[in-house]
């Protein structure tokens, strides 16, 4: 069975069957990652270009490992050392790469819609590794994989996304994917960081973190982008931590066990206190391992499908 589409641009509109297939396939790749030789010949002869117009460490390394472990040939391209500096357009950059016979493109770009645009102009399979505040589908899929691994299902699980929802592509992709899979999704954060008109997505909004924790099985804690400090969206980091920071004390007060996810990198003692990040309820390191397996699954399904 193949996926119903040849690109992975976002999770908005992706059917449940596709998400399930990706998550099921990832299970097989988790096993490959436990082997002494963590490499299979599946994508031998395929060339994949990682086009990173925005800095990224974790996602880029995760993709590159996934590609290499499938035996693909990998070309890395970062905007700061490229022809983009010389004024080349995105379309021209990719057209040129395509002339060199590439099979797949992984793109990270600061502009929302960059991956969609690419999907329309190239023959290669396109995977969105984050476009502006739009979507980051592979992050959401690895989050869902981790949740499913922990709870055995996504259906009926209460997931609360905490932090800067307005500027977060991780939040957006998680909401689309989790809703499709039948999870209960809520968001929590300061009013200035929660978009208006989010309820039509079927998402409950909390402005009080304790209340949100009371109803949730799992918190997906977003990174507060320190760049936004001084933009008047919240007064100080210290105040943010006091009001929306996940701390041991706050979790103990709730009297229940809540699982913690975080897409990384963590600002310790801003959105998440250090002891919670390192606690037994945190699946943050598990997410990183699962990320490679989920990306291998996506590359396999897009790279070998019709």
């Amino acid at each position, binding site marked *: 069975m193949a996926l119903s589409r040849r690109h992975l641009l976002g999770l908005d509109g992706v059917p449940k069957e596709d998400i399930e297939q990706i998550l099921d396939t990832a299970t097989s790749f988790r096993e490959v990652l436990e082997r002494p*030789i963590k490499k299979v010949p599946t994508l031998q002869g395929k060339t994949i270009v990682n086009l990173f117009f925005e800095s990224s460490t974790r996602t880029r390394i995760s993709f590159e490992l996934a590609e290499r472990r499938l035996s693909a040939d990998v070309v890395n391209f970062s905007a700061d050392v490229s022809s983009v500096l010389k004024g080349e357009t995105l379309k021209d950059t990719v057209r040129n790469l395509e002339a060199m016979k590439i099979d797949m493109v992984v793109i990270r770009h600061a502009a929302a819609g960059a991956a969609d645009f690419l999907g329309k102009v190239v023959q290669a399979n396109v995977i969105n590794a984050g476009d502006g505040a739009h979507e980051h589908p592979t992050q959401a899929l690895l989050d869902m994989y981790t949740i499913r691994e922990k709870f055995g299902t996504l259906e009926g699980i209460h997931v609360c996304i905490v932090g800067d929802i307005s500027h977060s592509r991780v939040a957006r992709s998680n909401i689309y994917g989790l809703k499709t899979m039948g999870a209960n999704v809520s968001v929590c954060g300061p009013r200035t960081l929660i978009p208006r008109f989010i309820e039509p997505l079927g998402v409950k909004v909390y402005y009080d973190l304790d209340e949100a924790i009371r109803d949730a099985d799992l918190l997906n804690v977003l990174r507060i982008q320190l760049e936004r400090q001084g933009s008047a969206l919240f007064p100080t980091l210290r105040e943010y931590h006091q009001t929306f920071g996940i701390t041991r004390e706050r979790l103990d007060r709730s009297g229940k066990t809540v699982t913690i996810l975080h897409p990384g990198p963590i600002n310790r003692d801003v959105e998440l206190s250090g002891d919670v990040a390192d606690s037994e309820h945190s699946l943050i390191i598990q997410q990183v391992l699962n990320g490679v397996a989920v990306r291998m699954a996506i590359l396999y399904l897009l790279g070998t499908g019709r």
Partner: protein
Amino acid sequence: MKIKSRVVDEQGFQRTVTRLAHEILERNKGIETIAIVGIRTRGEHLAKRLAQKVKDIEHKDVELGMLDITLYRDDLRMRLDNPELKGTDITFDVTGKNIILVDDVLYTARTIRAALDELIDMGRPASIQLAVLVDRGHRELPIKADFVGKNIPTSQGEEVRVLMKEVDGEDAVVIVDLSEPGVV
């Protein structure tokens, strides 16, 4: 499914599995160093049967694992429908083991080539021996089985199906005519 002929019945099937188990034990002088690995999906059930039979004879459990060779297939680049991954499940170290690789039908041997590559990527077995229920000929690679249940010469317009109780409700080997209309 148009069954052309039934070449092995239930009784014959069980006798064949018993004989294969004895041959494997005789060649390897017991079960100390062996591990049985079935190739998903049909070899999986046969491997379980062989493991049970070996246990009945020796009164000891034998290491058992399952191999999904999909990621090692040589036709992936031809962009067929994504073959579904069932997952490899080998929890023991293959290094130093005498691996008994099990499949239901030996035909072109392309599956076996993939299985050999995958096993060798997992470690360095002392040996790999191949056990199949049916050898139907028409090899496309220079591979031969160590333990063969039954040699069944066929034409390429035919297909040999090994039916097993676990999935088909009966144990039998049948020949199916692919040139007949109405065939599944």
